[in-house]
């Protein structure tokens, strides 16, 4: 899901950015702008960085540095559902490594391209979800699923696939 070389910025895109910029101007913080853009668009596109550079004192390279430093930001579009697979000690012992591999194979993604082609899922490894009693665990959007097995994972994915079709999950 590579971005095009010269993204054409529509008036709507600019409108989105304008409203984010105006609403958060009081903080005058790059982090806030970037977070809002990330949650509104699902990623921080190049044109948004250009836009912010023209509005604020921060340079494009500096913002790019910030975006790549924090895993909360993405420069590529992310899927509708974000699956966080826990790599913490308890989950690791519980076999999270194998589960992660299976999950990625199931969705046909890898570390380079963690988002499915239909842009339904993005897989992100995380250090710890803080629910070690449920190990091995993963989180889809805001919901935690514990004591995972490959079968269970399959079911969860299917639910979300269906859910997304119905627009309800």
């Amino acid at each position, binding site marked *: 899901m590579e971005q095009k070389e010269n993204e054409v910025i529509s008036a709507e895109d600019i409108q989105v950015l304008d409203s984010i910029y105006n609403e958060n101007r009081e903080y005058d913080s790059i982090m806030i702008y970037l977070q809002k853009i990330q949650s509104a668009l699902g990623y921080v596109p190049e044109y948004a960085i250009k836009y912010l550079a023209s509005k604020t004192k921060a340079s*494009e*390279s500096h913002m790019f540095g910030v975006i790549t430093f924090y895993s909360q930001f993405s420069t590529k579009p992310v899927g509708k559902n974000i699956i966080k697979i826990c790599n913490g000690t308890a989950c690791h012992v519980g076999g999270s490594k194998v589960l992660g591999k299976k999950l990625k194979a199931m969705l046909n993604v890898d570390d380079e391209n963690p988002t499915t082609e239909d842009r339904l899922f993005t897989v992100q490894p995380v250090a710890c979800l803080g629910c070690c009693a449920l190990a091995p665990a993963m989180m889809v959007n805001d919901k935690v699923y514990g004591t995972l097995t490959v079968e269970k994972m399959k079911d969860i994915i299917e639910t979300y696939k269906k859910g997304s079709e119905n627009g309800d999950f």
Partner: protein
Amino acid sequence: MKSTIKINNIEYDFEMGETILEVARRNGVYIPTLCNLQETKPTGACRICIVELGKMSAPVASCSTPAAPGMEVLTDSPRIIKARKTVIELLMISGNHNCAAIGNAKTELTDFMQEVKEYDSSTDICTAYGECELQSLAYKYMVNNRSLERIPTNYQLENNDPLIGRDFSRCILCGRCVQACTEVSVNNAISHGYRGNIAKIVVRGDKTLPDSECVYCGECLQVCPVGALYEQRSKYDQRKWQVSHVESTCYYCGIGCKLDISLKDNRIIRINGSGKGEPNRGQLCFKGRFAFDFIYSSERLKYPMVRSGGKLIKSTWENAYKKIAEKIESYSNKYGKDSIGCVISAKHSNEDIYSLKKFVENISVTDNIAHSEPFSRFNINYSDIYEYEKIVIVETDISRENPVAANYIKRAYLNGSELIVIGESEIELSKFAGKKLKKLSDFKPDNNSKYLVIHAPGYDVSSLKGKKHIYLNSISRENNTIGAYMLGIGNEKYEEIKKKKLMISTSPSFKPGKSVEFLVAMDFFPGEQTEKADVILPAAAWVEYEGTYVNAHHQLYKTNKIVDPPGSVKPLWMIVSELSAKMGIGSEILSVRELWNEEIRNKFNLPENFLYEELHKGMALLGEEISNKMTAGNGKIDNESSKIHKIFCSFCDGLADVAEKRVKTGV
């Protein structure tokens, strides 16, 4: 407030706010550093400068720890040495540091060389060998531990830029380049990106330098302590033992930056900024750093040419002089002396300009010689720019005309000065401007702040004159504009003179009109004026002869002869002196020294002991009185000539444009 600190059991005074490193350096105590860069905020990134504050505390980075009263610092305790060794060792195994200071980790050197070859397709050792700061530290601390594995490099060599190459396998992420880019030249093209073991110095969008906001000032290149950034044109050419260094002064703009020129086999291979003091504090711009290889261009004029039968034909100096002498005589007899005129470029040395002026006085009317540059004066030290609360830029794209001055202004902005940009067009500094105004008349200064106004030379700022809190300054665009004025050559008559029937021109931007019947062009490249010339005399470039100049700050300085001119090319002053001698209007002058000591020194009203031999000692500030006296009458601001300037594009700026374009487009 003064307090004392003990370093290695010796007591030293310090001022509150000084870091341990600063106190140590001031007192000659050595603490090694890598990431530390003068004039920028310490980052404490490399941890080489760690010192011990007592057995109980963890080592601290001396570059970023402020000295405190009663501190007892140990710079070389066994514990510190051991820790430093580990730091160096970790840095060494992090990349292709094949300088043979150590075998790399568990790999034999020869095997390691093969690995390196896979990365940079060269069997050569690191391009920074002998100049690398990490290498010298590895030697100093005898780092030869072989217990660690080489950490693989995640990023490919970036080789697509014709000027700056980026070798990520040798980058130690000290961040000096980022500091140079964001705090010294303030171009903000690079930054730290990613984190952990995939950290990298990035440009926007993690693209390559040509796709970035980089303006190629090359400041990063100059500060890189290792071989991560290298100049493409001299990649494996600049081995320390083959290169000699010569100091000189840049000739592009009025600032007159000090240069450190690297020579190999009598050929310039690299130019760096030199000196810690004014005017440039070691900085340089794109033009000064990279635009030098034109002097080796095959297109240069190498021998005199005389037009015969409509064609320019290779000739001898003898013939060319003869032809010019004949023509001057016939025009003088036919139309009178006033039919002869001379336009010069304000880039020539004082000696060139003075010889020409004397020559013109003899063959023509006294003031039939002019250049196109308006008068300017920069009264303060460049580093004093920081002291002004408000800086006003009037109708000048200073980042283009005098890039190093723009760096100072941008740094003042980082220190909290407000920037006000006045002008129709958007310039680089507009990005930093707190206020943008279209016209000077829109500018309403208040009485409470100190304003520094930097306007285009010759721009009419008379409305701001006479106000105590407004300091008016301008920086000359050409390196010796002020020298020309001091020698009595101004720009008032430029338009009139360029229409004379017989023209002598040394200005590459001169476009001969129809009224010009006979044109003698002295230049080093073929161009518009040489195409139409009847006699071409090839002149030497600035590094090919010695001479004196006066910069925008009205400082006198000398440049050195660094390389020999190609073919039979001669410096301008020599050409003029030979021509004068041939025409019987003065004896031949043998050296620049003679010209200075016997004549020009007196023209500048300098004291008797101000001999040419003394000039090498550096820049001499010509007293305000002297330079005012010299420029009286010519120093008035001329609006007309500022318009002329707008269509005037000097050759050298043109060349830098071409080079810049070449870089940007990769053609």
